[in-house]
């Protein structure tokens, strides 16, 4: 019994460890060069640098220039941050000023 538990726990730790080094992929949609856009990018960077240093990839997309993206992703509210990887996909709207909410909703460990 005891042995079985130890084995299972070790397996889980292994998975967590493996994902720890996996890169998070984020897409951030902003609309042009506004104060809101700048603030959102800034907030995103500070959160990711604090929690996911060297483990994330952030792609900033200016929706006003890449309209086909907007159509594809069914975007209405902006700014929009989409966590593409790891799954599940999570969508966050807003300027990401609520740091606690962002880290919790994105399952950043």
């Amino acid at each position, binding site marked *: 019994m005891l042995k079985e538990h130890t084995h299972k726990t070790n397996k889980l730790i292994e998975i967590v460890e493996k994902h720890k080094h996996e890169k998070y992929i984020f897409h951030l949609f902003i609309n042009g060069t506004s104060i809101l856009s700048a603030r959102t990018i800034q907030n995103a960077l500070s959160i990711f640098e604090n929690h996911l240093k060297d483990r994330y990839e952030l792609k900033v997309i200016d929706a006003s220039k890449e*309209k086909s993206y907007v159509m594809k992703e069914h*975007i*209405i*509210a902006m700014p929009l941050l989409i966590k593409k990887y790891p799954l599940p996909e999570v*969508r966050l*709207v807003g300027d990401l000023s609520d740091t606690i*909410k962002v880290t919790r909703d994105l399952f950043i460990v």
Partner: protein
Amino acid sequence: MMESQEVKMELNDVSHHLEKTPTGIKGFDNLTLGGIPQNRPTLVVGGIGSGKTFMAMQFILKGIAMYDEPGVFMTFEEKADELLTNVSNLGFELGTMIKEKKLYLEHLHVSHNEYHEAGKYNIDGLFIRLEKAIESIHAKRIVLDSLDSLFVNLDISMLRSEFKRLFFWLKEKNVTAIITAELGDIYVTRLGLEENVADCVIELSNRITNQIATRRLRILKYRGSEHANNEYPFIIDENGLSVFPIVTVGVDQVNSFIRIPSGIPKLDEMLENKGFFVGSSILVSGSSGTGKTSIVASFAKSVCENNETCFFCAFEESPNQIIRNMKSIGINLEIFTKSGKLQFYYARPTLQNLELHFLSIKVLIEEHKPSVIILDPITNLMTEGPNSDVRGMLTRFIDYLKTKHVTVMFTAAITLGSIARNPSDEGISSMVDTWMMLEDIELDGERNRSIYVMKARGMAHSKEVREFIITSNGITVIPVLRNEQGLLLGSKRIAAEKKINVLA
């Protein structure tokens, strides 16, 4: 800052004339004196099933078909293919319109529950999509259906500012827009959206009175333009949406001196030997069984014989029954229905509201342009609601017919006795030009019919009571004989006539 901008904008608006975009919806453009404000958004509010989406869709489709203005239809509710099914019976080739880049149809999937909110945001994404859609077909018209589903689950505090931004954005894009919204406390009343932002607000409703549902339309607000402000009924049928603006008619009535015979020569005799005025309204009243339908049928026959078209609206008997019954008194209507001179409109009075009956009839009048219309009987329709309503509607309908120069004859079960009991009945008779009263006189165990002309505006009509006989060869009206005992009708008259003949 924002305030001063708005004031400036309004001043600008006043300085130049308000342009309007016709919607192409029957009746609506008359009500608004030209349509909805050009290059501005119009808000269409209404409850579930009130016809908002349908009206918006028609605005786009008619715009393409009638005015060659490409349109964008952006829905947040129904799937595009569901929408296509809903309007497929209207006779528009939506597929071709889309191919020819006249129509841009998109279902925007709004699922805010998949979103997490983290800070401030706006609906710029929608603007980008709209812009792309407008550019792709050079749209002049756009519909957003509906506001509620767009803003569902979004923070209510941002709605007002975003809604305002949406309206200003649409104005800048030079498109005429219709935005639909459910009439709820939250959107219109509580946030006062219509007060502040929209230039034109239209309310649709679907109300039930006496178990009969009536769709109604009202223009709540139209900044910078005069508009009719009553509630108007509208119908949705295979021709789309039609509104019945009864008030705009009745301004330029043309009075005619031309006469139209009644079909009964002896009755014409009582009317200056000429008959009725063309374009006048004629009431034939009397209790049941006095022969009202026979009179209107002879009139219909005479109209058809003079190569004019007649429109017979039957609310009691079915057309076949009328044809059969009239054949028994020597009035053959069948030949005229076959030649198309006589057309029937038959509907149960309870099928819909009286106003809607008039609306359907009006649509048919516009289509067939008859010179005479018969309503038999009008009293049956009156069961559908308080009489005061009926009178107003009837007056407006008669006004409408007068402008169209259509002679109308209608029957009603109004007698002198019923007027005493129900004074509002007299109101109906006071708005007609010619009123003929049929009576049943019982004398010495025999019932006989009599007829007299109660009034005939504009002519020196006979004041005489005449006997009215229905034979297998039609109707005859003969002068009543009198002696010292009074009127001699029926068998007494025949006896008296014989006596005179013998004496002669």
